[in-house]
């Protein structure tokens, strides 16, 4: 694993921008937008929701990854101009978004909340959004946005009758109706079934490929790595890591892992394991009747363990990772020195 201190926490250093899309935007009609958070903090009384975060988000799909309560939604709200930073600045192409209603010409927001105008039909709702943007052809724009999210078949039904996934798509249509340069989505996959997830994932990838800056939040690594070209990891309000999904995955895999092992002879196995550098801690738990191992070189450890057991004539009954939850992964990232890291790929 190679990690390097990144400019995220250094005001003078350049922050990484996710790579430009491979394909040029069709028709060249998409304007680009770069969202920059510069040393942004947000606190509520004594509670710090976002702590000194610096990041730059450019064209392509960026996933904001972190456990629940990490500050992802707060970051999305800050980027959308719905929350004032307590410190630092949030800009879109150099212009602050807070107290700037004109920024919404270039920002599309899909909120996590399902609160909509349930008495309206999908068509009426999207059309109203098009009119609020004062688009020259609101009907045409609404039709196009509804077609994009594949909701034409249900557009004349009341939104109150929609399923969660349909509501999510019609919300998406309202955010796309003015073809924004920046699309912000707060936990867009929550409550969606697998087919709807696939459809939305395809849609986000297409938006990113068109040259839009697509930012979405999620607490599920697999979800983010399937869609995002750039991942920003946020834990406890801090920017913990930044990179593409391979590097983030590697960072998470390469951290020290704890294992609980039950075998026919724990003491013998411990003696063999301790001579190898892949483990930094080996403890025989006589009370529980198991061996607790902290592995620093996971690939070597997982390769070595069965070999050692065979050579020592020890039978392995059970090998269980003790800290595989995403929260423990995030905790590890936060505990590392230097709150934000750019991950070299």
């Amino acid at each position: 694993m190679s990690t390097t201190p990144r400019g995220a926490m250094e005001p003078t250093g350049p922050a990484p921008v996710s790579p430009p899309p491979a394909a040029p935007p069709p028709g060249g009609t998409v304007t680009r937008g770069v969202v920059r958070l510069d040393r942004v903090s947000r606190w509520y009384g004594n509670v710090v929701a976002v702590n000194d975060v610096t990041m730059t988000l450019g064209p392509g799909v960026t996933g904001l990854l972190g456990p629940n309560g990490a500050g992802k939604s707060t970051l999305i709200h800050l980027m959308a101009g719905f929350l004032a930073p307590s410190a630092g600045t949030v800009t879109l192409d150099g212009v602050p978004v807070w107290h700037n209603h004109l920024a919404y010409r270039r920002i599309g927001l899909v909120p996590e909340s399902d609160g909509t105008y349930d008495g309206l039909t999908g068509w009426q709702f999207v059309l109203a959004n098009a009119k609020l943007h004062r688009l020259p052809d609101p009907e045409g724009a609404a039709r196009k946005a509804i077609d994009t999210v594949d909701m034409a078949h249900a557009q004349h039904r009341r939104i109150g009758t929609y399923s969660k996934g349909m509501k999510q798509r019609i919300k998406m249509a309202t955010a796309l109706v003015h073809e924004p340069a920046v699309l912000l989505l707060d936990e867009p996959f929550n409550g969606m079934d697998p087919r709807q997830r696939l459809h939305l994932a395809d849609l986000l990838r297409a938006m990113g490929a068109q040259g839009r800056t697509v930012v979405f939040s999620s607490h599920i690594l697999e979800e983010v790595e399937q869609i995002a070209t750039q991942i920003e990891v946020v834990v406890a309000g801090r920017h913990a890591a930044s990179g593409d999904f391979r590097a983030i995955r590697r960072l998470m895999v390469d951290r020290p892992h704890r294992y609980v092992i039950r075998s026919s002879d724990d003491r013998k196995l411990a003696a063999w394991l301790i001579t190898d550098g892949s483990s930094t801690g080996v403890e025989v738990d006589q009370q529980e009747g198991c061996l607790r191992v902290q592995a620093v070189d996971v690939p070597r450890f997982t390769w070595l363990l069965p070999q050692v057991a065979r050579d020592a004539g020890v039978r392995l009954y059970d090998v269980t990772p003790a800290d595989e939850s995403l929260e423990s992964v995030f905790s590890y990232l936060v505990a590392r020195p230097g709150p934000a890291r750019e991950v070299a790929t």
Partner: protein
Amino acid sequence: MNLTIARLTTSALLGRRRALLLVILPATLLGLAILVRVVAGPDAPVGQPLLHLLAIGTMVPLLGLIAGAGVIGSEIDEGSIIYLLAKPVPRSVIVVTKLAVAVVCLLTFAALPTFVAGVIMSGRAGDVAIGFGLGAALAGVGYAAVFLLLAVVTRHAVVFGLAYALIWESFVGGFVPRAQMLSIQQWALAVVDKVVRQDEIEAVMGVFPALLLLVVVTVVATCAAGLRLRSLSLTESL
């Protein structure tokens, strides 16, 4: 003014169950007015007290609360306000449009029924219908602006609104005469007192200071609501 916001607001306001109150209260007033006319004949002594206590004193503040707070409060509570706020539309335009919807609603469901009830009970004698109708309309504007501000400032707008209408205006005002100076109801009654020639109303202030206070409160409340909406944080509404 923004017509799209007005349509969305009207749809959200009238599409709720509480909108039934907008019909039930004026229907009750009109029903009682017909009953009074049938039982006691024209210009019955009970006519003006009915318009004073039921129309100006009860119906207008309650409908003012439903319409004033309802044009924006439920959208803030449910989070649908985000679809208006995330648009290149000044927040002041949103507030003014919503206030206009609330005022039109109160003219339709409060002032007009008050005028019609006045006509039913008194004909055109003494300009009772015009006086009370005008008073209801002006009070409606004041209540709409104040309760809209309350809805933008707090999630408990209905509680504070009821406290103002029932405790401050009715209870405190009854024991502390000076408190009546800060009562929208009293400002409306000052107008009624001026317009109706043979009225039974004793206003606590003249019509001009009443109108001045009404205008100042309406303008200040609307500006304050616009400023507050400009700084409304998403997390406060969701």
